[in-house]
C-alpha cells in the first residue's frame, strides 16, 4: 500500500520556481489498477517518479508499505526499487545491443541471483507476457514495438515486484499492439499485482479500475469503477 500526504514538488531554475505538484494526497491499496490521467505538463509524470521512488518530493510525506521513504538515502531507495517496483517506459528503454534474454535478466544482475536461476526466471516471465521462444536470442531492435514493450514488461516482472509503474506504455504503439499490452497489464493485475498507469489517452485509462485525474499539479478527480 502506498500513501502520500501533501506532496509538493517545486523546481528552481535561477530565480524562477515552478510548482509541478501542489499538495497532492492520495492512497493506493494493494491489488488496485490505477490510471493517472492528465494533459501533458499536468505533473502526472513527476507524480509517478515520486511514487516510483525515482525522485523525492520538496515537501510532504510519502509512505511506501507503511514506511516513510522521504528521508531514505539513494542506496536504500535503489534497494526498494529493485525489490518492490517494476517500471515500464514509453520508449521501452531496452539495451539495443543485447539479446532479449539478457535485457530481461538485467535487473537480476543487481539482485545477486545465481546465474543459472536467472535464465529460468527470465524465461518464465517472457512466457507470462506471451513472447514466443524463438525471439529470446534476438537483439531487441529486431522486434516490433508491441513485442519490445512486452519484453520491457517481462523485465519489470523478473524480480517479482508487487507494484508495476507504467509511464505511457502504449504511447509508441499501434492500436492492435496497445490492446495486447493492456491485456497483459490486466492479466498481471488479476494475479494480484498493483498496476499504476500514467497516460493521457482516456480509452487506455478505461482499462483501469480507478482513474485519478490530475491538472496543474493537483488532483481534480478520483473515480473508482
Amino acid at each position, binding site marked *: 500500500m502506498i500513501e502520500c500526504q501533501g506532496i509538493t514538488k517545486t523546481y528552481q531554475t535561477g530565480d524562477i520556481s515552478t510548482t509541478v505538484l501542489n499538495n497532492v494526497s492520495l492512497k493506493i491499496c494493494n491489488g488496485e489498477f490505477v490510471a493517472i490521467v492528465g494533459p501533458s505538463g499536468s505533473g502526472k509524470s513527476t507524480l509517478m517518479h515520486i511514487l516510483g521512488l525515482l525522485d523525492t518530493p520538496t515537501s510532504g510525506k510519502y509512505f511506501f508499505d507503511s514506511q516513510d521513504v522521504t528521508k531514505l538515502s539513494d542506496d536504500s531507495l*535503489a534497494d526498494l526499487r529493485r525489490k518492490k517496483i517494476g517500471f515500464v517506459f514509453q*520508449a521501452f528503454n531496452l539495451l539495443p*545491443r*543485447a539479446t532479449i534474454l539478457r535485457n530481461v535478466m538485467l535487473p537480476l544482475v*543487481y*539482485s*545477486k541471483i545465481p546465474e543459472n536461476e536467472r535464465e529460468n526466471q527470465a524465461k518464465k516471465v517472457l512466457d507470462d507476457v506471451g513472447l514466443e521462444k524463438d525471439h529470446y536470442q534476438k537483439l531487441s531492435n529486431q522486434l516490433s514495438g508491441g513485442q519490445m514493450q512486452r519484453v520491457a514488461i517481462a523485465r519489470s516482472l523478473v*524480480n517479482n515486484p508487487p507494484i508495476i509503474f507504467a509511464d505511457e506504455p502504449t504511447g509508441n504503439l499501434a492500436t492492435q499492439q496497445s490492446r495486447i499490452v493492456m491485456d497483459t497489464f490486466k492479466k498481471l493485475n488479476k494475479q494480484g499485482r498493483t498496476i499504476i498507469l500514467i497516460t493521457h489517452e482516456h480509452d487506455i485509462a478505461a482499462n483501469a479500475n480507478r482513474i485519478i485525474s490530475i491538472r496543474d499539479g493537483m488532483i481534480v478527480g478520483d473515480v473508482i469503477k
Partner: protein
Amino acid sequence: MRFNDLLKEIFWAISGNKARSGLTILGIVIGIASVIALLSLGQGAKSSIQSSIESIGSNLIMVMPGMQRSSGVSSGRGSAQTLTIADAEAIKTSISDISGVAPVTSRSYQVTAGSNNTNVQVTGTTPDYSIVRSITLSSGSFISTGQVTSASKVAVLGPTTRDDLFGENAEAVGKTIRINKINFKVIGITTSKGGSGMTNTDDAIYVPITTAQRNLSGGTRISSIYIAASSQESMTSVQEQITTLLLQRHNISDSASADFSVMNQSDIASAASSVTSTLTTLLAGIAGISLLVGGIGIMNMMLTTVTERTREIGLRKAVGAKSSDIRRQFLFEAIALTFLGGGIGIFFGWITSLIVSRFISIQGQVTLSSILLAFGVSAGVGILFGYYPAKRAASLNPIDALRYE
C-alpha cells in the same frame, strides 16, 4: 553486482564498439610499449657500460697526472706530466696489499705490416700490466721484465689489431710490424675481451715502457699508473697510502694542491651508471608523456560513452542499480581498457627492444620490475582517467537520465 557480471558487462561494452575501444587502447599500447622498450634499452646500456668498466680490471686504482698550472691558468686535468716510472717503482716497493703496479704511457700511431696499416693506441707498459688489467694471451707471451730492462722492440697485439694487420685469425707471432717507422717483433696476441668503442681493449698494441719512451714518445714522463689492490677491502687504504706516498715524493704538503689524482674503478663505474640512470629516467619520462596522452584518450572515450549511454544508466538505476554499481562499472571499464593496452604494450615493447638490440650493440633487458611498473602505471592511468567519467555516470539523476534524448 557480482564481479563475474561486472566482467561480462565490461566485455559487452568494449566489444560493442570495437573501433573506438581499439583506438583508445592503441594510445595506451604506444605509451606502455615505449616505456618498456626504453627502460629495457636503458638497463641494457647500463649493464654494457658496467661490464666494459669491469673489463678494465678488478680492484683497479688509477693515478693520473694533475692539472698543469702556469700563473693560475689551468690546462685541464691530466695535462701535467708529473708522474714518472720512479713513482711507480716507489709504489711497488713501499706499499703492501697490492698485486701489481703498471706505469703506462700511451699514444696513437699509424702502424703498418706489409701492405696493411691501421691507426691504433700503442701502450708502453711493464709485465704487471697483464695482472692489473686482467689480460690473458691466446698465443705467445706478454712483455717480460728483461724486455723492459733492455728496451726491446717487441709488441703484443690485441686480436682486432692482429686481424687488421695480418688478416682474420692469421698467425702473427714472430712477424714484424712497423710503429712510427720502427720495426717491432710481435711476441704475443691477447685474448679477446669483446669490448667496443672507446674501451675496446681488443684494438691495442702493448710495448715495453722503456721502448716507448726511448723510441716513440721520447720523454721520461708517463701518462698514468695502474695499481691492482689485492682485495676489494684494501682498496681504500691502498688509495690513501698511494696519495700520502706521492705527496711526499712530489714535496707537496697540502693535499688540495696535489699534482695528481687517484681514482678507483668503482668511482668511474658509479659515475657512469648514474649518467645512464639519469638518461634512462629522462627517456622513460618522455615515454611517460605519451602514456599521459593515452590516458586522456581513455578519459575522452569514457566521457563519450557515459553521454551515449545516459538512458541505459537511467534504466539501470530504475531497476535497482546503486550509484556505486554504476561507478564501478564505468571505472572498471576504463581500467580494463588500460590493462588491455598495458598487456599488448608490454608485448610490443619487448619486441621493440629485441629488434633494436639487433641493430645497436646494447642488449635490451626487460626486467620484471619494468613489467610490474607498466601494469601498475596502466592501472593507475585507468583509475586516474576513469574516475571522473565514472563519477559523472554515477551521479546522474535517474529521471534526467531516462528522459535524455
